[in-house]
């Protein structure tokens, strides 16, 4: 019983890292183009921009809630920030407004979920559609236009001859790992995710924490959106579409439970890198994106099935 438990937790903690390494080796050996420094760097750079959205999303999952509006918030915030900068407002002002939009949507989600006791999946599907509509309006206004020079410079700023977001990613993940295992306010997320009523009985601020986590998720999705908009040069109507499902897939492959109480930011990030690597490598094998989604879907189902089985055996 105990051996099963520790084996299970071992698989959950390090399984995704192992799988990612194996995938990396397989692609590296079989496709020369995959191992090129530009290709590898591109993968890491991409993940380093989405990192913040993944983090916020994972924290919510740990707490037993879900925010499906991340992709839409990411698009609205990024596009709005770029739009304002292009319209001649200071770049900083655009960024500020973009991130405030994220916080505001997050606060709306949190208040409705907590105060009106609405199921977060249903509610955030609503916000997903609403916010996507707004973002489409902004994107249509910008259609085909390049973002202002100053705005595009953000994601391209360099640190030690790398895009600054790449070293920032390693730092952020390290700090988060430490904070999530030791900080009392982060532990509260796990307790709420495991049993909210118990957490309330034990004197934790469950309502405030839940609202706060939604606000954070919105704000972090906005931050990632601003960084990505800055990178893509031209306003894009499809920005962040289906991002929520990719992140959700990554979180689950990384060992998070949709019932809450389980999950690690670092695992979600590694799993996201794994999905990016898979897409990248499969293209080199000439696998069309249409078929790629079949592969990702099968992997997701397999992981969930295996996890459920492990859970059963662990009692």
């Amino acid at each position, binding site marked *: 019983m*105990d051996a099963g438990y520790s084996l299970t937790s071992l698989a959950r903690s390090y399984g995704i890292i192992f799988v990612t390494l194996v995938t990396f080796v397989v692609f590296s050996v079989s496709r020369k183009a995959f191992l090129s420094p530009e290709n590898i760097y591109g993968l890491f750079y991409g993940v380093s921009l989405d990192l913040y959205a993944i983090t916020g999303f994972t924290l919510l999952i740990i707490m037993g809630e879900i925010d499906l509006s991340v992709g839409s918030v990411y698009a609205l915030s990024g596009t709005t920030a770029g739009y304002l900068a292009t319209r001649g407002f200071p770049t900083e002002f655009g960024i500020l407004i973009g991130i405030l939009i994220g916080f505001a949507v997050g606060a709306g989600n949190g208040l409705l979920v907590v105060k009106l006791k609405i199921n977060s999946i249903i509610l955030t599907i609503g916000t997903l559609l609403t916010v996507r509509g707004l973002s489409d309006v902004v994107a249509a206004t910008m259609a085909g236009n390049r973002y202002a020079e100053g705005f595009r410079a953000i994601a391209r700023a360099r640190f030690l001859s790398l895009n600054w977001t790449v070293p920032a990613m390693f730092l952020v993940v390290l700090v988060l790992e430490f904070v999530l295992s030791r900080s009392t*306010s982060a*532990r509260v997320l796990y*307790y709420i995710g495991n049993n909210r009523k*118990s957490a*309330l009985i034990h004197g*934790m601020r469950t309502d405030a924490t839940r609202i706060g986590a939604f606000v954070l998720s919105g704000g972090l999705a906005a931050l990632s959106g601003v960084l990505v908009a800055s990178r893509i040069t031209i306003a894009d109507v499809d920005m962040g579409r289906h991002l929520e499902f990719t992140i959700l897939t990554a979180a689950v492959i990384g060992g998070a439970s949709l019932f809450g*109480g389980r999950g690690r930011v670092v695992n979600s990030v590694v799993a996201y890198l794994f999905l990016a690597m898979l897409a990248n490598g499969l293209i080199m094998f000439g696998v069309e994106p249409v078929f790629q989604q079949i592969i990702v879907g099968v992997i997701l189902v397999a992981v969930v099935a295996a996890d459920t089985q492990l859970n059963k055996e662990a009692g």
Partner: protein
Amino acid sequence: MANPILEFVGVSKKYGGNFALQDVSFDVRPGEIHAILGENGAGKSTLVKIVSGQVQPSAGTLMFKGTRVTVHTPARSRQMGVAMVQQELSVFDHLSIAENVFPDHRFAGSAGLINWNLLYRAAQGACEAAGFSADVRAPASALSPGRKQLVEILRCVHSNPSVLVLDEPTSGLNTHETAMLVSLLLSLRDRGVTVLYISHRIPEVLALSNRITILRDGRERATVENDGLTESSLVQMMVGRDLVSLYDPTATKQNGSGAASLAVEGLSGYGSVHDVDLTLGEGEILGVFGLEGSGSFELAETIVGLRRRRSGRLRVGTTVLRRWQPRKLLSLGVQYLHNNRKDAGLYLALDVSENAEAPRLKRLSSHGLLNRWKLSEVVRSSIQRFEIKARPRHQRVVNLSGGNQQKLMMSLCLDGVPKCFVVCEPTRGVDVGSKAQIHGFLRNVAAEGGSIMMFSSELPEIIALCTRVLIMRAGGVVGQLVGNDITEENVMARAAGASD
């Protein structure tokens, strides 16, 4: 004498290293009401699960009508004509009462369509025969928990079983409903149905059964004819020597010093609690008793701030509160033990250590970061003090025994001596040994000046520990008993509304 319909031959069941049942042998004769009597944790539920095929015995065999049953599954058990009334309610809330009584397609016509008139008429008849009137077209969610239980029993009865198994069927019923059930079972016996009746309530067992098997600590202590038995002789067999130490009437009871440590004034909730006033003295153990549906646990949850309030004030020491949540009360020294550890009070999927740190996050941290060294120290001493058998870093709480879970849950509330301890069902589903320990912990709290408000549905427990008992009915406090007036008869009479 007829051949037995069911026979247990040397049946054992082991969970981990512990025997839930050990070498149990007895038989059940056709057409009798056979009671299985035992304390919580005596192995009754395991026995039931073996009969219903949910659990396989580790050793021994189960014989049905003289043939040995191999590979016993729930489906196989139903085929043999065994019908189970479970402890947990499994009523379909959104379906009508009629559909709950007859969930199969018995009233379907040739095209597979249900003949509703026939269904409603049959259900109406079934309810009336059992002695309760209800609109069978109404959804089951409208029923009280006790009535839901009766509906569930009716469903089993009408599946025409050869053996009807009832696991603690009266735990959710009031006196009137219990009487209805008793007469229903007696009429079933007259029609030749065999009834296996699991209970820890001696009076019912004496009133109903032909024979009684007594289980204690997983072993069969005796199987006796119900002839000339008395309550005390059964108690003796059921509890063994432990009885004296467990419910010792001469054990010191705390009277309290008189100063109020907690007072509730005009407290009303939404639906289940109306206009409650009560005062709890320092060092007092106050009992609160109410039957299912009386609102007693709702009152506890309302007092500690887990439920919404319509009106009312709370006084803790000299602090008067109009708005409060558990967090606020904890800071004033009011602790709460939830009535159902599977629902709340623990984190079942986490390990013992993580559970132990949850209510102490603030105390075990500096600058917002957990102090792991301090943590393991606190966990170790707490586990020792409460005699919890567990390996803190390696065992998930869900894998602990009921007694150890309950002691762990209590240890989370008792770091020091709480000013006031609101306790619900402190010994729900624990073995006899843990029960005595838990009562010891509670007595200690009171002896050291803490006050306790104990909500329990176990009258013997209330009688053993409390000097004053409040009785609840229909969401209000309807009576109070003090000292020697606290007897089962007096409390039940008031709780069931026989006299005020």
